[in-house]
């Protein structure tokens, strides 16, 4: 049986009166790559900070590699984790000093500290920057130095918060490769937060969807608020009426998996339920995957693999969407 990196039960954390994060039961196997996917403000960062033991659960239990977390041992637990925040802070010193500071804090052998730090910088392509003042680095360079500082610590678990943010495409590719290397070559557990479902699916063994502080079974995209009508057969968002299959009497929102929305540039969906005509408002292509933003009464996001029929897609052009009732989740 694969040992567990994390075991979570009834974990709750709140910044105020309202529960900001609640996870009932979740196990993360050691040596896995796990993606936390959710929109901004869904609780991904709070979850990562709990997994890094920077925040302490207010209820429930959390264990790391078989050891139950106790508040009094927070520092010991933190030293087994390497967290790369979304917007990392660099100390007012040289690049090399910035990488060495964590090693000093964790009491690595003195004679090895400089060597390890230089190796970590080299790994992120920052060799030659050792003596540069950290404050003079560009945003992308600073992100890479922070990544080197995390790598140098060689923790049991790596936690990355939006690792591809603010990076150019080359650095994104490099970071993705690094995540895979850490996992495949060094057998490290890697957990990263992202709002990019495509990136998550490409890199992760497991994708955990987070929405409004809860783990949910579907990708948290295409959220529409409204009300259930006609004994649960219809969901009215105000702008659109959706036919839904799972008959529930209440629920104030629906989610539609962006991979399960079909589209066509002609009217081939005639006669089907949940067909919406709209216009393409955004379009991006990444690694053979196309991501569309469509305004069709509501604003939809669609993901799918690039095919020949995608060549005709243009921003501003007309498009028909088809949402099967089965792909709609009422929450």
């Amino acid at each position, binding site marked *: 049986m694969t040992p567990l990196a994390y075991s979570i039960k009834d974990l709750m954390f709140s910044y105020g009166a309202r529960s900001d994060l609640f996870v009932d039961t979740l196990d993360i196997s050691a040596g896995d790559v796990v993606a936390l996917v959710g929109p901004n403000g869904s609780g991904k960062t709070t979850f990562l900070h709990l997994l890094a033991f920077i925040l302490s659960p207010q209820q429930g239990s959390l264990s790391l590699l078989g050891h139950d977390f106790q508040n009094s041992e927070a*520092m010991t637990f*933190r030293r087994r*984790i390497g967290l790369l925040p979304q917007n990392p*802070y660099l*100390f007012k010193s040289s690049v090399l000093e910035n990488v060495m*500071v*964590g090693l000093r*804090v*964790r009491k690595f052998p003195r004679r090895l500290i400089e060597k390890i730090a230089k190796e970590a910088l080299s790994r992120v392509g920052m060799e030659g920057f050792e003596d540069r003042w950290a404050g003079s680095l560009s945003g992308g360079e600073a992100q890479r130095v922070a990544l080197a500082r995390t790598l140098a610590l060689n923790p049991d678990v790596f936690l990355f918060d939006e690792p591809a943010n603010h990076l150019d495409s080359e650095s994104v590719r490099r970071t993705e490769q690094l995540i895979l290397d850490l996992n495949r070559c060094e057998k490290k557990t890697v957990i990263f937060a992202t709002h990019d479902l495509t990136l998550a699916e490409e890199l992760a063994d497991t994708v955990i969807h987070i929405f409004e502080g809860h783990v949910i079974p579907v990708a948290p995209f295409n959220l529409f608020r409204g009300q259930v009508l006609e004994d649960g057969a219809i969901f009215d968002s105000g702008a659109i009426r959706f036919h839904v299959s799972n008959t529930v009497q209440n629920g104030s929102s629906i989610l539609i998996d962006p991979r399960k929305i079909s589209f066509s540039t002609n009217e081939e969906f005639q006669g089907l339920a949940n067909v919406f005509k709209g216009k393409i408002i955004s379009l991006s292509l990444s690694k053979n995957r196309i991501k569309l933003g469509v305004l069709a009464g509501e604003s939809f996001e669609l993901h799918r693999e690039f095919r020949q029929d995608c060549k005709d897609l243009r921003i501003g052009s007309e498009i028909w969407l088809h949402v099967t009732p089965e792909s709609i989740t009422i929450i």
Partner: protein
Amino acid sequence: MHFLSESIYRAFLLVLNLDPEVYQIVWTSIYISFWSTTLSSSLGIPLGALVALKSFRGKPALLLLLNTSMALPTVVIGLFCYAILSRMGPLGDLGLLFTPTGIALGLFVLATPISANLTVAAIQNLDSRLALTCKMLGASPLQEFWLTMKEARFAVMAAIVIAFGRVVSEVGIAMMLGGNIRGFTRTMTTAIALETSKGEFELGLALGFVLMLVALVINGMIFFVQRGRL
């Protein structure tokens, strides 16, 4: 006009000819300012760090007290210290009144709130991500305190330099607690006040030039410290 230019000329000669009286006064000023700044920084910086980093009962009251102390008139501090150091006061037996040590103690009272308040501001102005960074690196509370002070070092060094600038240019406390005794407790500011009242502008101006030079050096230090490269 002729009188003024003549006075300035003579003042320059006093400075350039290394007049022993001028340099005795300058030395006394620097000596007293150095020790009062050292003492006030030794207390004010840790106190400021404690107030900035820790939550405790009475913290708002302490902050209010520190802020109010910054606005205390120097003659009030002088009066208060005079009462303590005079023969009838609680520390009268130490015989510190009208000594350089007595002035240094008064200036210490003046400079400590400055060091403390500027340290509080220095730490409170640090990037909010610093505490998170210390924690995620696994720092102990002591390591976190050390890293925080290291990050605030430029502003804290500026606080020391500002405190020095304040005490070296102070006149009320030096006059009340030092008595302006020639060759013993006469500082640059008390000497300027005395010489001006006597109509002896040359010595007053000469000391004024030195005081301005000291101010220039201090401001130069603040400039480099705040650029973070000293």
